[in-house]
């Protein structure tokens, strides 16, 4: 499975949303992406990619797209 697909799966499994809804998805756009959902998403990404995210990156992780750039800091490149 590609890195991008793993990234997508973290969102769809955490928030129970369709892949087609992710492109413009931002924090608090949906009820599931609240502060608790945000922590669940961060935990899912850390587990999938074997990383530990810094607090500043967790705060900056405000959308599906923004997250892609942040993941680059952890050498997680979307292919």
């Amino acid at each position, binding site marked *: 499975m590609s890195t991008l697909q793993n990234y997508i799966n973290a969102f769809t499994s955490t928030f129970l949303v369709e892949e087609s809804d992710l492109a413009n998805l931002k924090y608090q756009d949906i009820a599931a992406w609240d502060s608790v959902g*945000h922590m669940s998403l961060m935990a899912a990404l850390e587990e999938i990619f074997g990383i530990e995210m810094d*607090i500043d990156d967790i705060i900056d*992780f405000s959308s599906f797209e923004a997250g892609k750039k942040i993941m680059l800091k952890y050498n997680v490149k979307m292919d």
Partner: protein
Amino acid sequence: MIENSKVQALDIKSIINNQRNRYPVLLIDKIVDLVPMQRATGIKCFTYNEWFFPGHFDDEPNVPGFVQMETLVQTFILTFLCKPEYSGMKTNGVSINNIRFKKKIVPGDVLRIEATLESFKRGIAIGYSESFVDGEPACRADFVVAVPEILNKFKPKA
């Protein structure tokens, strides 16, 4: 507050200082065994003077399920609220799963609650509690509990 992992018990004053439940919903009397960030064992003694017995039920008093749940979760949250950095913080339930009620609890029963903290990260606590009366299983459940004061530190910018 617990300053290190060697303290082994909490009396009612310490429980009140460490968590925010108060009468009539403070539903544990003491913690008899405590390893911060790992486990806690709580005790709740039920007498007929409890506020819920006359209503549940007048002809057959027994402890309501929601009260049993509270004894489990209140013991559970003390596994981390006993730490100085979290002491006194409010908690919110996120989920309760795999609930099992195995025994009717009646006036005179002493409930022993054993809580285990499986993980605590960025204000999300995951674990479970089991309770017993005279060594017999009474109730159990899995918990996810959030600490909003900690979660708020990790909120994305608007």
